[in-house]
């Protein structure tokens, strides 16, 4: 469903700021890929570039999603095609309630596909079900989006959005950072309950611990903007034991 070829990306308007230096990655339907790497390796950049964050500029390569090149598409157009990014630091948006903004998101998607918008009643029912499923405090979702939410509540709210929007490719950008074990389990449960033969995940993480709860099909090690090794779930355990030192040394020697 997703094919990344020789992807290079830089920070917009900053010279010599290349972060991604030729990423190659293929994700099939129903697979869970973990992307691991040390700080500054470009793993978060990759997640954001895939979603179309305007802070980055793709300088070479291609990203094909369901047979269509998506690099020219805006973030909302990628979302309409089934992509989703769970943020490391979700924005706090005063005055905007999760209910209201998710309805707007689904409405925009329906509009882009020429479909009818979901009625307020049907959406309310769906929303309430998902709130219960995710185990998010119902009073919280009546508040402003992420405003005054704890780290765990923000991540849980990201899972709520994932449940409501039902994307075909969900990218989790270091969703585990700053979470205690309980919150980590919630995120993992969210992902696991949504795993299906039709849905793929890219889980970006620094630590192996999230992968104790989400078993990936494929693990990639990203160092200095390149995938330096790809393997099975065992690779994550290896990294947990040995760290990224050997990869960094190798990348340094090549540089």
């Amino acid at each position, binding site marked *: 469903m997703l094919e990344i070829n020789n992807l290079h990306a830089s920070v917009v308007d900053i010279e010599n700021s290349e972060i991604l230096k030729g990423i190659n990655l293929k994700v099939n339907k129903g697979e869970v890929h973990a992307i691991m790497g040390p700080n500054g390796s470009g793993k978060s950049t990759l997640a954001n570039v895939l*979603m*179309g*964050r*305007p*802070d980055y500029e793709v300088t070479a390569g291609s990203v094909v999603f369901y047979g269509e090149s998506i690099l020219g598409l*805006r*973030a*909302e157009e*990628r*979302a*309409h095609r089934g992509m*989703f*990014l769970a*943020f490391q630091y*979700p*924005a706090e*948006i*005063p*005055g*905007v309630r999760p209910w*209201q*903004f*998710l309805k*707007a*998101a*689904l*409405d*925009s*998607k329906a*509009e*882009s596909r020429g479909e009818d918008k979901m009625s307020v009643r049907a959406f309310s029912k769906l929303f309430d079900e998902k709130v219960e499923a995710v185990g998010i405090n119902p009073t919280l979702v009546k508040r*402003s*989006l992420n405003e005054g939410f704890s780290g765990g509540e923000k991540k849980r709210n990201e899972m709520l*959005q994932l449940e409501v*929007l039902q994307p075909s490719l969900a990218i989790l950008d270091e969703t585990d950072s700053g979470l205690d074990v309980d919150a980590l389990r919630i995120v993992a449960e969210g992902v696991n309950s949504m795993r299906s033969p039709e849905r793929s995940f890219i889980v970006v993480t620094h630590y192996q611990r999230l992968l104790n709860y989400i078993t990936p099909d494929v693990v990639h090690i990203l160092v200095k903007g390149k995938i330096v090794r790809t393997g099975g779930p065992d690779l994550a355990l290896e990294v947990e034991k040995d760290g990224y030192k050997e990869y960094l040394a190798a990348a340094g020697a090549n540089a």
Partner: protein
Amino acid sequence: MTLATLPAAVEKFSTAYESLLTRSSNTTGWLNVLRQQAWSTFSELGIPTKRRGNELWKYTNLQPLAAADFVYGVSGSVTRDQIKVAGPWDDAWNTIVVVDGKFNAELSNLNGTAGLNAGSLAEAIAGGTGDVELQLASLAGREEYAFTALNTAFIDDGAYVAVIDGTELKEPIHVVFVTSNATENRASYPRLLVDAGAGTSLVLIETYLNLAETAQFVAPVVEMFAGERSTIKHYRVQMENEKSFHLGTTRISQLGDSDFTSTSFAVGASIARNDIHTLLNAPGASCTLHGLYMTNGTQQQDQEISTTHAKPNCSSNQYYKGILSGKSHAVFSGKVVVERNAQKSDATQKDLNLMLSRGAEIDAKPSLEIYADDVTASHGATAGHVDRDTLFYLQSRGVSEDAAKAILVRGFAEEMLNEFKPTALNEFVERITDERIPILLAESDTIGTT
């Protein structure tokens, strides 16, 4: 220059003033004296100018007002339906309609509520109702201020609201000041006197509607007396047309343990000022002054917000939000004075602005003057814009760029819109805001920038 030269733009008001004196059926002796004193004050002051040292008008150029001509005393016809379309309305409310400064009994909808005396100010003056002689112009009209003097010189009619001691009103009182449709540029001086007795509880909505397409000059003055232990929830909705001038003054005097809350919704006029002052005149009084202003094009909206803590143990809270676009301009001038003996005062001031365009300007000037030593006070003002990260967050969920921008602007306003509690009023300000947002966004160039 000779001594006979009048200050800016006084002369053109003098013909109207003379015609008022001969025409007005309101010939109560004390009123005539009051008008003459006020006229003499205005004659000396004229329309304020931006001259050096004039702190009140430092950021506001009234030259377009001084240069325009207005006729006085021309009244047109207005229907109930026009009022219902242009402003908030609820049949259950006790509604007083004032057309071009004159009380209109037919358009009003007074439900004969017990404990409420509401209607024409002219009748209250002529009949010597309650404390009208003592109260009228005791808070506004005798001081050295051009617009309250001008309004007072032209007191002829308006609205009078008295709530008898101990009355708790279930339904709001709605005072609608409407400018009828006319081709002329006209001046009107709406006047409202509110006397809330001890232990009363009331909601008062004050709405300014303008059915004309030409430039109108509207200079209202509102005086309110909050009795001991009274609770007043006041709302002010300013919907003048985009060519008009609206220079409104509201003065409130609060007795012990009274609680006054005012929430303003200001979107109309070419140049507008909402000047409100609360006097916390006995221990235990508290006031909350809120408001939302939105500007676009070359509009100017001023919030001149002041509170005087005259006695101990009072609290005040000023909190305003502005959304500015195009080449518009807004002023927030918040002032809190805590007098020497007003110990244990608590005062907060805040003004937050969402700048939708680089061409818009906000002059925010919160200030505290504290002469007592045992006081808790804070103030602050900000001007910001919607950044790229926030916009991207919504877009990544599939919300289109335009819808995301509208959601974010609406989100900024939401907190203030929620302050408008009566259902029909809340629906009205939400509708007007939703209609206004695309207009603001069309002139925006800062959303989603870094």
